[in-house]
């Protein structure tokens, strides 16, 4: 319906230069979505034009697909939510047959989020995707805290991180973003391991391991008991880790964790992020990605910033 199409939110015109480069991936503005909160964008296309985003990051994909976890899979927490979706996905062939062609037809840039239960599976997913021309970059999720055999062990151990990133690096020349878990003692150490194995960029943070309890029923709120915390409540943790990683390595960072406004995004850029991802905020408001981009423009115009890249790491301590 015409009236509905017109109601889509758009990133407004500006003289501010918004383009950034994320480890070899050119982005027309610094805003993408956080993997798993946006599917491959189609569900949001009644609200935003996905081609206007710096990139569309797709939901985590494995080789042959996973069933995910039992329900309930989510719980609301103060200023946040827990999820234990368990990386349910239909497999890489489906992504290539369905979602990637759609993103291409929209004119969108795709960052494909890759997951695996084994080092080999990561490599096999990337090898399959090398045949697709619509992939701008890979984001390797070494950090999913949800799946028994999945990211958790890999992303918390520097030697395993080096091994999986090295294997992925050998499988592709495309920009390789490695997504870090916040559930470690020293995120800088993990970041250095990923970069030494060939990561072009790092993204952080994934969800923070947490739990919610129903006292009346004396039961956990999630079927899987524990899950990943996201939303505004994790922003201080995310900012601190982006700042630490920025001070530890030289590659560009994709910052995320509780971003729901342009000001939130600017805070991440000042701490060292080159680009930002909007996750849980998409559930609060389906135009959140575009709202964040417009908020960045507002800030730059108000502060007289002519190029958004000037802000990266600009925190004055």
């Amino acid at each position, binding site marked *: 319906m015409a009236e509905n*199409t017109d109601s889509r939110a758009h990133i407004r015109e500006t003289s501010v230069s918004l383009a950034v480069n994320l480890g070899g991936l050119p982005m027309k503005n610094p805003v993408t979505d956080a993997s798993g909160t946006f599917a491959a964008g189609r*569900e949001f296309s009644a609200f935003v034009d996905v081609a206007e985003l710096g990139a569309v990051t797709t939901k985590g994909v494995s080789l042959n697909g996973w069933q995910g976890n039992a329900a309930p899979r989510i719980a609301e927490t103060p200023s946040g939510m827990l*999820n234990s979706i368990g990386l349910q996905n239909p497999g890489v062939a489906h992504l290539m047959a369905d979602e990637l062609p759609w993103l291409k037809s929209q004119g969108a840039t795709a960052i494909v989020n890759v997951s695996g239960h084994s080092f080999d599976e990561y490599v096999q997913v990337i090898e399959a995707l090398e045949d697709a021309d619509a992939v701008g970059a890979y984001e390797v999720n070494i950090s999913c805290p949800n799946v028994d055999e999945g990211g958790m062990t890999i992303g918390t151990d520097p030697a395993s991180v080096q091994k999986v990133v090295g294997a992925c690096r050998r499988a592709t020349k495309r920009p390789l973003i490695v997504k870090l878990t916040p559930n470690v003692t020293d995120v800088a150490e993990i970041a250095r391991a990923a970069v030494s194995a060939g990561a072009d960029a790092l993204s952080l943070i994934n969800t923070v391991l947490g739990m919610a309890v129903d006292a009346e029923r004396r039961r956990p709120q999630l079927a899987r008991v524990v899950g990943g915390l996201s939303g505004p409540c994790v922003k201080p943790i995310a900012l601190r880790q982006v700042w630490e990683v920025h001070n530890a390595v030289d590659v560009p960072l994709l910052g995320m964790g509780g971003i729901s406004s342009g000001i939130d995004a600017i805070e991440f850029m000042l701490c060292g992020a080159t680009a930002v991802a909007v996750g849980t905020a*998409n559930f609060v408001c389906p*135009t959140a990605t575009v709202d964040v981009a417009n908020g960045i423009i507002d800030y730059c115009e108000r502060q007289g910033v002519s190029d958004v890249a000037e802000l990266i790491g600009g925190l004055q301590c």
Partner: protein
Amino acid sequence: MANPVNERARLLSNDPVGPRLYLMRLETPIIAKTTRPGQFVHLQIPAADAHILRRPFCVYARDAEAGTIDVLYQVVGEGTRLLAKATPAVVDATGGMSVLGPLGNSWAAVDEAQSGSGLHVLLVGGGVGAAPLYLLAEDLIDAGCAVDVVLGAQTEDALVTRERFAALLGREPACATDDGSYGRPGFCTTLSQEALDAGCSVDGAPFDRVCVCGPDPLMKIVAAQAHEAHVPCEVSTERRMACGIGACLSCVVETTDGLKRSCADGPIFDAEKVVW
């Protein structure tokens, strides 16, 4: 199905109508025009920023001309408790309530009724599950169907949809209350079984369809009754939702065709396909 929109709605009224039950009227011109029976809206709790997730509610009634929808809801937790406190003045002061909709699919019975002739349909609603059946009854009757309605509630004063159904049908719906304060004492599944056995109250013809909305155990029993009677049955599922538009996979329903998203592939499913 129309594209969903995010409307900034004025709250026109929000009044208690029964035990922990509230009736809310929202000004949502586009959603009021485009909502089909069974679809839902996903609302932001006003002035409650720490509650970041929206809450899903079925559309109870719609007035396309006035541009309004009604939502009947029960206070069950923190979000609905805050919703019950919302006043038109507070919502106006915050620039309106963010209402996403219409979302989800609709009852196949409506399409079938509109293409065929004179279906006999049995509607079974438990608790606030009766609300989404009202729009369905309206559309089915408009399409020339004979409709029987069975309602269940804990007490008489919780049977808040009874009068609207009576006015629409021109006769009383069959009612059961847990405490026996109105209609048949006990669960409404006794009434749904009797209805299936007796056939449509209008002409005694066997039912062509059963549509159920209510707690899972109720839907499961009625689905089994319909199965026994060889009558196709649809159920309206209720799952915890985050996005409400099919992107996050929070709301999965297990079906014989695999995991489906309640918000986008449902909330209405063929009862035969649901793995209870």
